[in-house]
């Protein structure tokens, strides 16, 4: 092959350079945003962030829960938290961690990946109350979110909530979306904790005495105070905290359902459990406190089915007489201050209801067969239920102590 002439070479070089240069100006566009199959890339979320403000001598991690405003936690509702966050005591109290200075102390918090919606924030300081001048019962930090028997505050913990900084009224927070549907972050939220919201008692732990088989007649079960202090569980309630409801603050007991009986602050629910799942409620398999989209739909008393999974409860209530006696003073007047009772009597009628709409439970044609749990809700929002994870069939597998009485279920044969 003959060697190219210099002129020829220069032309070729120029041609090559031209090809190269023509591309130099291309391709400066940044890469486009293309979500992959990863679910997290296909959601539209924002966040809630703000500060904790703590005025308390208690010391411990602060735990803040995020609730759907339409599903508030006990005692207002039965909602379970959507999310929670932990602000470690070291971060919250800093150098004052080893003191009992009352504060105030502040620390930032964030709830990540929050979709648009209305929310409530509640929390508590999981206090270590076993210091030098420890009150009894004292508690080490014992909150564990994964088990029903360890997921609520105990005596000495300090409650908190997102409140209006000027009025102190609990707030409903709203994460709004812009015109494109993109949720906008909610910032500057304040969650206040104060010693005035110290939890007075441990949770209303109980054991059930009575025949566990439901018949065609009304059944009365006795709920007795239970103390458990073993391993990760430390519940030493002095009894059940009970008072009249006086929502209108008129100094007299309310009777919201106009049944002629005063309303008590203690509530009880007998809820049907899912078949084959230890303590999972029927039609709430994901345990979020909201009826599942699909599930069992029973025949209502009027012969219809509403096409929705039912929240089946048995008609039950506390036998009022012993409570009225406890809440009556020496002059025979209603005692409006809470009292502690050692035992409750639970009356269960042979009637099943669909409580999907709690305000208007619908009777079912018959009691669905199966297992039913008993849930007790105290005015502080603390709850206890049986069966729970202390059932000897479950407890060893999750590192909790076995308590035979906590395996109780009410059977409808």
């Amino acid at each position: 092959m003959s060697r190219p002439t210099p002129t020829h070479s220069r032309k070729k070089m120029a041609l090559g350079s031209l090809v190269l240069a023509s591309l130099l100006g291309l391709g400066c566009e940044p890469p486009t945003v293309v979500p992959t199959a990863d679910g997290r890339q296909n959601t539209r979320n924002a966040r809630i962030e703000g500060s904790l403000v703590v005025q308390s001598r208690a010391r411990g991690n602060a735990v803040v829960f995020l609730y759907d405003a339409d599903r508030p936690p006990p005692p207002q509702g039965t909602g379970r938290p959507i999310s929670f966050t932990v602000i470690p005591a070291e971060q919250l109290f800093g150098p004052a961690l080893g003191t009992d200075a009352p504060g105030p102390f502040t620390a930032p918090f964030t709830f990540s990946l929050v979709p648009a919606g209305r929310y409530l924030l509640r929390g508590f300081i999981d206090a270590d109350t076993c210091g030098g001048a420890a009150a009894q019962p004292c508690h080490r930090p014992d909150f564990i979110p994964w088990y029903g028997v360890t997921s609520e505050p105990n005596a000495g913990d300090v409650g908190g909530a997102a409140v209006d900084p000027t009025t102190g009224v609990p707030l409903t927070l709203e994460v709004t979306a812009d015109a494109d549907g993109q949720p906008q972050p909610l910032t500057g939220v304040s969650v206040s904790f104060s010693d005035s919201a110290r939890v007075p008692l441990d949770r209303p732990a109980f054991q059930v005495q009575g025949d566990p088989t439901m018949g065609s007649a009304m059944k009365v079960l006795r709920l007795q105070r239970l103390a458990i202090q073993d391993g990760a569980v430390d519940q030493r309630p002095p009894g059940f905290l009970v008072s009249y409801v006086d929502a209108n603050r008129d100094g007299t007991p309310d009777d919201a359902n106009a049944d002629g009986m005063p309303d008590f602050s203690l509530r009880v629910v007998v809820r049907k459990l899912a078949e084959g799942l230890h303590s999972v409620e029927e039609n709430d398999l994901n345990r979020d406190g909201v009826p599942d989209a699909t599930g069992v739909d029973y025949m209502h008393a009027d012969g219809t089915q509403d096409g929705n999974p039912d929240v089946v409860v048995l008609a039950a209530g506390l036998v009022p007489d012993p409570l009225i006696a406890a809440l009556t003073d020496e002059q025979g007047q209603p005692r409006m201050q809470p009292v502690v009772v050692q035992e409750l009597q639970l009356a269960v009628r042979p009637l099943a209801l669909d409580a999907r709409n709690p305000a208007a439970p619908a009777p079912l044609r018959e009691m669905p067969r199966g297992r039913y749990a008993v849930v007790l809700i105290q005015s502080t929002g603390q709850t206890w239920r049986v069966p729970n994870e202390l059932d000897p069939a479950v407890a060893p597998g999750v590192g909790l102590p076995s308590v035979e009485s906590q395996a109780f279920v009410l059977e409808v044969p």
Partner: protein
Amino acid sequence: MKTPRFLKRASLLALCLCAGEALADARLEARRHFRAGMSLIAQKQYDQGIAELEAAYAIKPHPNVLYNIARAYHDAGRLQEALDAYKRYLASNPPDAATVVTTVAVLEEKLKAAESATAAAAPEDTSALPMPPPPASIQAQQQLGVLLERLEKAIERAESMPVASAPTVAVPVSTPAARPEGPEVSGADEGAVPYEERVVTASRRAQSSLEAPNATTVITAEDIRLSGATSLPELLRRVPGADVMSLGVGSANVSLRGFNQRIANKVLVLVDGRTEYQDFLGLTLWSTIPIGLEEIERIEVIRGPGSALYGANAMLGVINIITQAPGSGPRARFSATAGTGNSAAGSFVSHGSSGALRYRASAAYSQADKWSRDFANGRPDMELKEPDPDLGLRGARATLSTVYTFAEGRQVGLSGGVHRYTTEIYPLGTLRNYFMDGVTAYAKGDAELGPLKLKTFWNHISGDAGPQYEPIGQRTLVRSVSSNLFNAELLFARAFQLGGEHQLNVGVEGRLKRVAWDYLGPLRQEVHAAAFVQDEWRLVEPLRLVASYRVDRHPLLDNGQPGLAHSPRVSALFIPFEGQAFRASAASAFREPTFLESYTRIPVPVPGVNGASALTTGSTSLRAERLTAFELGWRGESAELGLDWDVALYQNTVRDLIGLSAVQRLPAGESYDEASGSYLLGRSFFQNEDAVYTARGAEAGLSMAPVDGLGVKVSAAFQSVTSDREEKAECGPCSQAPQLKLYGGVTYRTKADLEFGLDAAFTSSSTWIEREPAAADPTRIELLSNPLKAHTVINARVGYKAVPDTVDVALVGSHLGGAHSQHPFGNRIERRVYATLTVTP
């Protein structure tokens, strides 16, 4: 008369497509010319035969071709041309130089005598009538007969060697004085047999790929250049059975014969015998390798288990990247590339020598944007953690490689390199798109003392690594990592006779690994040791047996205590005809637990639940993953047609795969993790799976150079993976392995210095079973099936030698088949176009 425009264009096209001295697959084309030349010479058509040999030599220089040219001239009685050819041959410093020098001396005497005789007879001749040639003497006829017989034998072998007993040496190295300078040398054929494909990886010594006990694929520097590929994984799509899965421009996972995953950990990648397997995570970070494509001489891919020679992690295969020998290339070569996707690259490579010292030095820079981003800027929920959200890779690197030769077979080599890089990684489990920003470095020393070879190296990688995006307010997982590996290996090779010819290779190896990474807790350190032996026994022709055995001592393999991993391999090679080899092999191999799998303790934040984490832990009592493989293969070639092919049938049985368990609740008392300030919803730990997976497959590859200028490569691989315990819908390795992979590539080079290349790689659909937090309750981790569509990767290149041997330009289009993803969580891969200018002053 004005020529119509279309005629001009047609003429131009015809000119472009008219192949003259062009070549596509140089080795195959040169071999075809060589074979044709030897055949013609045997038929006494010397002129045509010698022309064919010269053509072969022009395509790919090989000294033995010169010898055969000389012999042909000699036989044709053209002593002056023979003498010239012998001298060219001697210039290559051949092993039979002494014999050839004698031949040259004899020829020179004859020529002198002939000149004298011619001078004396000249006056008479001018007036005399032409005389018939004198009859050949009996002696001359006998000599001619011997030569013809020799030539015929040479043709039968399709390979002619000047000295039958020339030793087979590992990558023959000429002395500096004998090694001519210039660009042509880098393309020279260096094997003892002209144009034979040679590999060094299959048996840790140079051998014909026909004699390799494994299925092998070789990607040459020429293949690399003509492909226009910008990354190593892209090149590997042409390997039958290779799973190449690009998740980002700088992040790819490569496996062989299935079992690919987001961290592909079952193929050992070497650069000149130095591992590039990153033990801290168990993967090859392709874009952090400090070697550029322009420095590679060839890539050898051993498809099948390689633990018998290479130990851990050579489970499904070995990819050995062999760089250009120092001093074997041009004194300077500059290359610049620019293209879409903000792609830019530049490199400089220099070869040289000073006395017995030869060197290769390089420096390069490259960058490219991601094909696509996962998240936009300014989101109210996610924050950026990586240095640049658009950047897929960026790196600046430099290497230096030197060799000092004391004498034949005695040399010392020192090399090192450093690479400052930013790249992407796609880790396991619920972790997603990571960035890694840091430095890799290596230093390597080689000493060759006759049959002994000592190899030592140090590998280093460090940097920051973590998720590219994290939810605002979530605890970050960005951490620093630093890994150092020190390795020493001593090899001994010897040939001997005992009931046949034996080729014995023995080696011992020691390795120290140190990893500092917050994910693992304190500094972790492991000491490994190994010994291996291989014997290739030529029992009786045409049967050869290859037996290999390696034992590796691992500090944890015996339930957390030091234990041994045994890797035997037995192969039988049957070579009934020249150029046709049938092989059968049985082997076992293993993958050792990585540092991550052994030691990790990571509380992984639960998305959207700031107070919760899912703990991922390692286990120091893991067993190694085990592979038992059986393979039947046929490798053949047809020099006349310019064909090479390889067919393989295999069955791989994989046991003890290491994977993450389902999330299991922790004892209540262990729920709070003070270090992370979060509650652990459970623990997922690395464990050996009970299931046994069986992969069966067939692979076929064919390379053709039927006419000058045209090169064709096609391959197909079919595979099926089953499990003894899992249904296909639940079996990740079963559904994730594409059943069918096809590759086709064509290169065409014209007389007018234009080069065209087009290749397409088809991968059938698959389903990826991946972990993901449940949408309704992120504290529940679900296994979700993610279907992945079939896709075809199409790349094309047009090159032009603007100034022969000096200036090349090329236009490359990659992923021309359209946008697609190669993993459900990977980038959406888009078309890109690059232009490259290469100057060799």
